[in-house]
């Protein structure tokens, strides 16, 4: 089978031995797992054995583009980064926009597998066929911005750079990978794994043409897709504020993470919403590759006479660094965002961890002696102090760098009751005590409490927020559609935000790849990947099962104390109803283990024995 639409090559780099190997892309891998997140899942499952230390040389960082990455069609700039997660011990991936993924493909690679570990700081240089592991001693310790600037100055502006900051170097378990002055692969600690390999950055330039099955047909369809986007009613206005535009709505829903997820409404939200961003700090819209609706906002702020730049803040950063930390000034939120980006800390986990620390401090679980000073909500200095300590893993930052779950285990004294996480990864921006589908989405996302597998809160709003029936089915439907974008190398926002029709992707896929898949075939791949990552967790996380699918007790025992969701909580019995329904529809047993029949239906026969499926 000719692999059209793909670069046709998988690059393996071992920074320890400074060697690179180019393997032809296995057509079976392409057909069964598509690319992006699908490649990450399959390669990690096959190549990283159970028991692997996430920070040891046996773990691998997989960087994978998709068959639709980097082509003339809307919003195809996404790339997946994955590794066994040091934060959760389970499957980890995170996708990133910008221009890095397309460049990897133009250089001739569908995926880059980084294996082994370097004894000394290094960076991976890729210029088409030329691949080198180069010394990065001078970059070690530098922030992401300085690193990107230094590499571009040295190599050329046309190199695309992805780098880690001090947090990733020092082993903070939720370190991100940064690119293009503010795009991140933020979640699951993929930056930490890169740091453990002493890989400071990748710099990539590519000049090759991506062959497609039907160039004329693909060009015509690509044009039609752009024109269809331009004609959508939401095309112009949605883009104006980007994701920051949902801040008011989430507050109206009573679902805005506020004061360490203790409640769902932030009084100061109008001061940190999309309009505040536009009015006070906005510089330019900033688009990822081929995106017609650039959600990225690039901003400039001035605090204490000092100017700083940041991409964003995006909604998630506004939620986690704004409401969750009680910062009610968009410039301050932007500054906290800038600090996270430069230090290489995921703004979501970082904001959640700092919020958790502030609540623990308020409750006396930790004191000024451990923290090194008084800290409080709504105080930017406290926030920056904690972030800097986290990135350096100094003082209180050592514990905080491990994430809220491990902090709570270490500190005890009831902290486990309110630590905001599932599977060890902190919640993203939706307080879901009155959003059962969203809560279930968090509970069952393979990487932990992240919204990108199923942003189901809109479904709760549409069909009734107390209703439980039908929620599991919708979450599963979304968990197949949304991650499919991650496998194809696409951004889902045109579909989510301006109702761009999914059929377009089904139409262009065969024109690009020559593979005669329908939309349902593509969704079948997505289901295969979701079951494979579930199996990964069973193999890698000791004792994994149903117990890992619940949030902390606060989130099913304590009614929301204020705001539009006041008095609401979905009790444990209801969470059990949702989980039972979900497992049954998925073809998983009561412990959430995929059944043998399900795995075989999905062509995952070899997995049956691996996880003792019945």
């Amino acid at each position, binding site marked *: 089978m000719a692999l059209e639409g793909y670069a046709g090559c998988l690059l393996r780099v071992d920074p320890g031995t400074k060697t690179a190997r180019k393997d032809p892309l296995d057509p079976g891998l392409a057909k069964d797992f598509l690319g992006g997140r699908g490649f990450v899942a399959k390669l990690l499952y096959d190549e990283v054995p159970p028991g692997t230390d996430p920070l040891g040389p046996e773990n691998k960082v997989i960087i994978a583009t998709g068959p639709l990455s*980097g*082509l*003339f069609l809307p919003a195809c700039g996404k790339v997946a980064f994955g590794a066994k997660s040091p934060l959760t011990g389970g499957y980890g991936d995170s996708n990133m926009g910008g*221009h890095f993924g*397309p460049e990897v493909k*133009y250089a001739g690679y569908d995926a880059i597998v980084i294996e082994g570990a370097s004894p000394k700081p290094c960076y991976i240089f890729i210029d088409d066929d030329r691949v080198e592991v180069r010394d990065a001693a001078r970059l070690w310790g530098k922030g992401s*911005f300085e690193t990107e*600037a230094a590499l571009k100055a040295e190599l050329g*502006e046309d190199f695309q750079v992805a780098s880690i900051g001090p947090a990733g170097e020092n082993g903070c378990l939720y370190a991100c990978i940064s690119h*293009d*002055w503010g795009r991140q692969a933020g979640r699951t600690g993929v930056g930490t794994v890169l740091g453990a390999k002493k890989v400071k950055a990748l710099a990539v330039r*590519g*000049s*090759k*043409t*991506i*062959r*497609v099955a039907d*160039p*004329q047909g*693909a*060009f015509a369809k*690509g*044009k039609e897709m*752009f024109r269809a*986007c*331009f004609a959508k009613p939401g095309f112009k206005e949605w883009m104006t504020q980007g994701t920051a535009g949902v801040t008011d709505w989430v507050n109206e829903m009573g679902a805005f993470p506020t004061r360490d997820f203790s409640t769902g409404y932030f009084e100061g939200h109008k001061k940190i919403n999309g309009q505040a961003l536009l009015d006070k700090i906005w*510089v*330019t*819209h*900033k*688009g*990822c*590759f*081929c*995106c*017609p*609706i*650039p959600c*990225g906002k*690039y901003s*400039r702020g001035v605090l204490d006479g000092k*100017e700083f*730049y940041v991409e964003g803040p995006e909604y998630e950063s506004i939620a986690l660094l704004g409401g969750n930390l009680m910062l009610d000034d968009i410039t301050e939120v932007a500054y906290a965002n800038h600090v996270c980006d430069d230090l290489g800390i995921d703004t979501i986990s970082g904001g959640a961890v700092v919020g958790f620390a502030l609540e623990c401090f308020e409750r006396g679980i930790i004191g000024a002696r451990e923290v090194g000073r008084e800290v409080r909500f709504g105080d930017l200095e406290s926030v920056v102090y904690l972030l800097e300590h986290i990135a350096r893993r100094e003082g209180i930052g050592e514990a905080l760098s491990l994430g809220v779950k491990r902090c709570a285990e270490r500190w005890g004294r009831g902290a486990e009751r309110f630590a905001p996480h599932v599977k060890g990864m902190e919640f993203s921006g939706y307080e879901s005590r009155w959003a059962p589908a969203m809560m279930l989405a968090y509970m069952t996302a393979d990487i932990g409490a992240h919204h990108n597998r199923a942003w189901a809160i809109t479904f709760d709003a549409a069909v009734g927020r107390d209703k439980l029936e039908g929620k599991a089915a919708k979450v599963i439907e979304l968990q197949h559609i949304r991650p499919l974008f991650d496998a194809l190398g696409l951004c889902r926002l045109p579909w989510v935000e301006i109702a761009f029709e999914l059929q377009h992707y089904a139409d262009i896929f065969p024109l690009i790849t020559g593979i005669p898949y329908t939309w349902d075939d593509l969704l079948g791949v997505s289901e295969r990947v979701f079951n494979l990552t579930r199996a990964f967790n069973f193999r890698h996380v000791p004792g994994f099962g149903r117990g890992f699918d619940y949030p902390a007790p606060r989130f099913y025992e304590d009614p929301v104390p204020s705001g539009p969701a006041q008095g609401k909580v979905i009790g444990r019995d209801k969470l059990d109803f949702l989980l039972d329904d979900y497992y049954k529809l998925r073809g998983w047993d009561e412990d959430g283990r995929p059944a043998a029949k399900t795995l075989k239906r999905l062509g995952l026969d070899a997995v049956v024995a691996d996880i003792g499926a019945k």
Partner: protein
Amino acid sequence: MKLKFKEGLCSGCRVCEAACAMAVFGEENPKKAALRVRGHFPAPGTYDVAVCDQCGECAEACPVEAIKKVDGHYEVNAEECTGCLLCVEACPRGVMFTHRDREAPFKCTLCGTCIEFCPRGALVDEEAMERGA
């Protein structure tokens, strides 16, 4: 047609580059585009797009007269080109491009595809605007 970049609108998405390479060469490869998006980051955080204004300095510089004006735009005749690249040096906007796949440099043919697919209206046909079209 007169291709012009309008300040302050570009988001750096590079649809123009992808579209151009498809229109001119039928290839999925922005490195074969005859225009370039350039970001200025981290400060001041702006984009511009280098486009050809058909000034003709490339044709002036060409020692073998391989670049000629056709239908309002300058065109490189790849057969006649000797690959000396004097035109690349002469171009004041940096929009005479080379690619290792091609012996001759290449440039904008004023096809207008970039204008049609720029999502932000950052690329315009100045003549059409003057006509009120």
